[in-house]
C-alpha cells in the first residue's frame, strides 16, 4: 500500500507501523467518575467496520509522524491522510 503522507508525499506503507482505530485518540479521563467502565470500552471494544476506517499509522522509518489514515477495509482504498496531532486537536485534545 501507499500512504500519501501530508508532509512527505507518497510513501510505501512498509515504512509505517500500524496501531488501530483512530478512536484511540479519545482517551477517557482517568481521574473522572466512572473511568473504569470508560477505559474498558476504550481499550477493548472496536467498531471494526467493513468499509471506511479511520486508523492510526506511525511513520517509524521516516519522520515519526503519527497519521490518521482513512482507508476502506474492503478495497484498501485510502481517501484521506492527516496528521494525528491535527485530528487530536480538532477532537479537543490538548494537554
Amino acid at each position, binding site marked *: *500500500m501507499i500512504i500519501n503522507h501530508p508532509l512527505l508525499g507518497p510513501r510505501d506503507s512498509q515504512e509505517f507501523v500500524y496501531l488501530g482505530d483512530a478512536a484511540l485518540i479519545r*482517551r477517557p479521563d482517568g481521574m473522572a467518575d466512572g473511568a473504569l467502565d470508560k477505559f474498558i470500552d476504550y481499550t477493548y471494544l472496536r467498531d471494526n467496520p467493513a468499509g471506511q476506517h479511520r486508523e492510526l499509522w506511525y511513520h517509524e522509518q521516516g519522520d515519526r509522524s503519527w497519521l490518521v489514515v482513512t482507508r476502506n477495509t474492503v478495497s484498501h482504498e485510502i481517501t484521506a491522510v492527516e496528521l494525528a496531532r491535527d485530528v487530536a486537536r480538532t477532537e479537543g485534545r490538548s494537554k
Partner: protein
Amino acid sequence: MSRITGGQIDRSKTLRFSFDGVAYAGHPGDTLASALLANGVRLMGRSFKYHRPRGVISAGSEEPNAIVELRSGARQEPNTRATVIELFDGLQAQSQNRWPSLKFDALAINDRLSPFFAAGFYYKTFMWPAAFWEKLYEPIIRRAAGLGSLSKQDDPDDYDKGFLHCDLLIIGAGPAGLSAALTAGRAGARVILADEDFRMGGRLNAETLEVGGGSGADWAAKAVLELAAMPNVRLMTRTTVIGAFDHGIYGAVERVSDHLAQPLPGKPRQILWRIYAARSILAAGAIERPIAFENNDRPGIMLAGALRAYANRWGVAVGDRVAVFTNNDDGLRTVADLKAKGLDVTLIDARQGDEVIDSAGRLGLKSITVRRGNGRTETLAVSALGVSGGWNPNLNIASNHRGRPVWSESLAAFLPPEGAIAGLSCAGAAAGAMSTHGALTTGADQAVQALASLGLTASTDLPQAEDAPVNLKAHWYVHSGKGRAWIDQQNDVTVKDVKLAKQENFVSVEHLKRYTTLGMATDQGKTGNILGLAVMAELTGKTIPETGTTIYRPPYTPVAMGVLGGRARGEDFKPTRHTPSHKWATEQGAVFVEVGYWLRTQWLPRAGETTWRQSVDREVLQTRKSVGICDVTTLGKIDIQGTDAGAFLDKVYANTFSTLGIGKTRYGLMLREDGMVMDDGTTARMGQNEYVMTTTTANAVPVFRHLEYCRQVLWPDMDVQLISTTEAWAQYSVAGPNARKLLEKLVDQDISDAAFPYMACGNITVKGTRARLFRISFSGELAYEIAVPTRYGDAMIRALVEAGRDFDAVVYGTEALGVMRVEKGHVAGNELNGQSSALNMGLGKMVSKKKDAIGMVLSQREGMVQPNGYRLVGVKPVDPAKALTAGAHFLAKGAEAVAVNDGGWLTSVVYSPHLGHSIGLGYLKGGDTRKGERLRVVNLLANTDVEVEIVSPHFFDPEGERLRG
C-alpha cells in the same frame, strides 16, 4: 517430426543438452520443449495421480504436463515447465515423478486402478484402524505424491530485490502491449514494458499474420528497436508480473540468469521488482483451451495454437501427419500454416458436427477416432493433434483483487472485470479483442486514456492488420463413451470426476475445485478450469456465469522462494548491530550473544578457563570484589525536553517524575493502557526541562513509538520533544567497590559521594570530552553509568580498561550482568513478559493513583489485584548442590504434577558465585506472603524435582548499603 523451415532460431549455432541422460542438440531461440519436439521427443512427463504418459500441450507458461527437473546438484529445480526453459549449452533435465524410468513407470498401475481412485476416494477410506493412517497409509501416499524433488542442498545462487517507478506499466509485449508502449513512449511517458518471454512480440512471433504489410514478427522486432531507443521506456524481457497489489504496486520477477548454465559472476539468478505504477495496462493475451474427449491426454495432442507456434516460431513439425480439432476459426489458421509448411493436415471442425472421440498410442499419439457429423466414425493415423476450444482472455492479474469476471457469450469466455483494480485497464486479447487489429487498436487506445488521466497527451499511429472474427461455437467436451476425458491434465481430473462431484453435491465451484483438485496443480488450471466449470454448468442446468467464475490469486506463475527471500539469508537474515566496544571485545576473544539485532558480549574468557561458568563466576566475583565494566549501550536512550517534559513523564510512567530534583535519577515503571508493565528503566533529570530516559534493550523502539503516540495523539499540546539517542551515546556501566576510584582517573569533575551521591546524574567531561554520568546500579554495587558520544566509545572502553588495571578490573558480559541482577532481585526480560503487572513484580506501590497515567485505571481491575495472584519471589534450593531450571513450575510437597496444583514458575535462574548455589526468581501464587515456605520446583521436561525455599528476591545486600557506599 523434425525441423522444418523458418522460425526464430539461430541455426548457425548448436546447443548441446540432455534429457534423462540422452544427448540432444538444439539452437539458440529454442525452448527445452521445442528442442525436444525437434528431436522427436514427445514423452516428457507423467501425470500426478495416474502416472499417465504426457507430452507438451502448450507453448507457454500455462503448461500443465511437460514439467521436468532442470539442472542437477544444488541447482536442481523441480517442476520446471519445458515450454519456458530457454535452451542453453550443457542444459540437463530429467523427467520426474516416475520410477524406474519415464517409459516404464511402475506407478502407472494407478491408471489401471483408476476406478478405485475416483475424486475424493481418500476421504471415504483409510479410517480403520485409526493408528494406521500415520503408520501405513499416509507414508505410502506421501511417497507416491509430490512431483519433482529438491536437492536438499542450500541454494547456491544470489537473488536481488529492486524498486521501479513508472507512469505506465504494460504487462505483456504482444501486439497490444507493443502498441500501447509505442503510443505512451512516443508521448514521453515513463513506461515499463514487461514480458515473461525472452522475445517480445507475443503471438506475433508464432503467427504468419501481417502487420503493416510485412510480417508481424518483423513489425514486433522493429517496434522493440524503436522502444529500446527511448530513454523513457524500460523493456523487461524474461520478466513475469506476478500479481497486482494495492495502490498500483506490482510484483515482478526478472529471470536474469535462468537462460544460462549458471549466473555470471556478480549477477543474481533472479530479481524481485516492486513496480510502483501510476497506471497499468494488462495486455497478457489469451490462453487457448482444449476440448475434452476420451484419452485426450496423450503426448502429441496439444493446443492448436501451440502446434502452430512450434511450426512458425521454432520451425518444428510435431508430426508429419496432423489433425486439427477446433470449434473456432483460429484452428483453421493452424491448418493453413501447417499445410503451408508442407504437412498433411486433416480438419475436424466441431461446428460442422465433427468430433474427435478417442485416441490411441501408449507413449505417444498414434491415431485418433473421429466421428463425423453424419455419424460415421473413422480412425486417422496421426502423430499430432491440435485442439482448439477457443481462447480465454488472460485476465489472471485483473482478478487479483477478487473482482468478478464478466461472461462474454460471443467468445464463450470470461472477460476481465472493469475497474476491479484501480489504475489498471486491459487491452488486446486479454480484453477480448481477439484480432491483431483489435489488439493494436485497444493497446493504443488504453495507453491514450491512461496517459490522459495523468495529464499527458498521446496520439496513435496504427499499422494495418487483420481483423477477422472469432466465429466460435462453444464446445466443451465430447459426450461419448465410457472412458475418461481429461480436464485438469496434471492432477488427473476428468469429466467423470466432475460428474461425481455433482452427484455428491460438491456443486459450488470452490467445492468442485477442492473435492476434485481441479485447477490446484502447478498450472493453476489456466487451460482446464473453464472446462470444469462448463461441465458443472451443464450438469446443474445453469449457465456458466451462474455456476461460478474463474478468478486467480497471485502469483501469475509459480515464483522461486529464493527470489522472494532476496538477500535476507544466513548471516544477512537481519541487520547486525555492534556495540561501541565490539571491536575491542573481538580483540579480547569475547563470546557474543544475539540480543535482538545487537550482538553483545556474553562473557570474556581468559586463558585457562574451560567452561563459561568459570568466566562468568570470575566476572561477577571480581566486580563485587573490586570493579567491573560492562557495555550497556544497547539500552534505549531517549532525550525528553520541553516545558511539559515532567508532566509528560507523569502521564507515561506509573510513578511521578515531575517532582524529581534536577541532577537526580529515578527508577520508572511504564505501563500499557491495560495495566500490564510495558517497560522499566531509569530516567534522569538533567535540567529544568530536560530528562534522559533509559529503556530496556528489547523495548527501545516500541517505547519511543509509544512516547511519540502519547505526545502527538493523546496530548498534542504538550510542550515536549523527543529524540532517540540510543545510537548517539556509548554507555558503560562501571560497578564495584572501586568504581569511583576508577572513574576518578578519567572524569574531570568531583564525583565523591558528597558531590555525586547515589542516584545523581549530570553532564560531565572525560578528559575534556563531553559525557553524561549517572550514579545508578543494576548490580547492587556502587556503580555508575557513563556515556560518551558514540564515536568515542571504542576509546572509552580502552580508557576504562586501562584505568582499571590498578584495580584488576574486569569487563563483564550479559551473563554476569544477569547473575548480579538476579542476586539483586531486579526484574528483566523474563519477568517483563507482557503478562505481568506492577503488583505481580512486587512494585504495586509504584503505581500512583493520584494522577492519570497510562495504565493506572485498568491496573485496578479486580482480576489484577487478587491477593492470590502471582508475586515475584526469590527461590533457593534447600540442598545447595541442586541446580534450578528456569521454566520449572512450583508444586507443594507431595502434590501431583497436574495443573490444579500449579503454583507458578521460575522465571530466571542463575548460579550465584557469591552465595555458592543456584538461585532464582519466580512468579508464585500469593508469593508475597509465603517467604520461608518450602516447595518443589519441578521440570517435567527433564524429570527434575528440587526442594526449594521461598525467600526475598533480594539475595544480595538487601539494604542497599553497597550501592550507596
